[in-house]
């Protein structure tokens, strides 16, 4: 199937926004600077709005999005994505507003917990809608895992980038690198799992996407860079680590989503022949 770029960008941007906000939420518990939280939550909300805009581009007409919203209770894959997008938006907005207007910690912590949960769910469920019987190359929970993992890695590096720009070394009690590495590992696991599910034969039919995008950048480079952040002894500037990590993880995220579309076969794709009467060489 053709790569549906609006959907690819939507899921990765929104997922990254959700993951970024999950890190903002975590920092409420593990410690971090307010500036980073402020900046992170604003970037997160911007990302899910941007992602949402991309998703609308997939529709025949942007106005059609309203129909999807008015039929939210269909509990189709799209309506769950929409619900999560809305929930994230509301929680992020509330978090920003509450922090601006009050010093009460409990509502912030509650919103932080909700933000972590919704943020991660957004990453996951943006992929989960594709787990359908009719698409055997999508029909595995490894696919949403890869969606979540790549979103998480992007979110982690993005959070690190904001920290490098706005924060101090005490973020997450100095353990941010470990969490970033953890996110990169989840991302790598998701990628490996989905590629394994696809099978190396099918996946390598898209050699550049698989070997260049998913393996070299999405897995190896992302892991190495996040590893440098933890074990590199600070030889590499944090901004360099996080920005390069973000680029690699993002490309990895794009690559696995593209792979999903390119490897889609359909269960029995009866109309796939351009000339109707061309035989199937079975």
């Amino acid at each position, binding site marked *: 199937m053709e790569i549906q770029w609006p959907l690819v960008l939507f899921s990765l941007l929104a997922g990254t926004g959700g993951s970024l906000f999950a890190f903002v939420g975590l920092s409420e518990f593990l410690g971090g600077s307010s500036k980073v939280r402020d900046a992170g939550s604003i970037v997160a909300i911007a990302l899910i709005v941007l992602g949402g805009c991309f998703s609308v581009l*997939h529709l025949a007409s942007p106005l059609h999005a309203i129909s999807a919203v008015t039929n939210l209770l269909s509990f*189709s894959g*799209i309506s769950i994505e929409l619900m999560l997008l809305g929930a994230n938006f509301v929680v992020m907005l509330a978090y920003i507003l509450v922090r601006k207007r009050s010093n009460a910690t409990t509502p912030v912590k509650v919103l932080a917990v909700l933000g972590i949960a919704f943020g991660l769910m957004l990453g996951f469920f943006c992929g989960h809608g594709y787990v*359908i019987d009719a*698409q055997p190359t999508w029909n595995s929970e490894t696919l949403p895992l890869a969606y979540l993992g790549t979103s998480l890695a992007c979110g982690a590096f993005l959070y690190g980038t904001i920290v490098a720009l706005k924060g101090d070394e005490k973020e997450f009690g100095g353990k941010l690198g470990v969490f970033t590495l953890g996110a990169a590992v989840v991302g790598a696991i998701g990628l490996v799992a989905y590629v394994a599910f696809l099978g190396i034969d099918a996946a390598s039919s898209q050699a550049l996407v698989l070997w260049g995008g998913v393996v070299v950048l999405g897995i190896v480079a992302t892991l190495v860079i996040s590893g440098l952040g933890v074990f590199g002894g600070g030889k590499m500037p944090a901004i360099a680590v996080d920005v390069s990590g973000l680029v690699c993880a993002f490309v990895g995220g794009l690559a696995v989503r593209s792979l999903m579309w390119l490897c889609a076969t359909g269960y*029995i794709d009866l109309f796939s022949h351009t000339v*109707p009467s061309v035989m199937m060489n*079975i």
Partner: protein
Amino acid sequence: MAYGLLINLDRCSGCDSCIVACKLENDLPLGHFYNKVIALGPTGTFPNVEKYWLPSQCQQCRNPQCVAVCPTGASYRDEKTGYVLIDREKCIGCRYCMYACPYGVREFNEEQGCVQKCTLCSQITADGSGVPACVHNCNCGARFFGDFDDPESDVCKEMAKYPPEAIHSLPDPGDSQPVTRYILSPKFASWKELV
């Protein structure tokens, strides 16, 4: 009720008439189809080969996956008749139904921004006055239309002429329960599962 098509592949000669009859009746532009005819085979090695044609269109599932994934209710199955249809007014063109259809028999109409597919020629058949154009015009009398829940319907009467081993449906990966049936007697060719 479960209206749908029965296609007797013992009779089908792969003439493509149903494709053009459908396009003319439903005013489909070039490049758009509600049905296609796929030649399966010849399988085997010359001269020991066999072949049949598989006319393909919406399988009119009882539990359609296209309906399950539709975010707006545009894809729906009419409770009373069993027709699986698309309400173009409600369709937002997200194409999830196309991904979710196990048989790949829906297509996207760029111009109208919505997904379309076989309607069983509801403009002819809804009031019970006729049969779909592909059935009416089938050169070899291979296509039948009717209610699979009614033993007196054309489809059930034709099926009753054949033993169970000659009656097939497309494989069903997710309990879609396609209504469409194909008759293919082993003496002509063995049924290919396609998956």
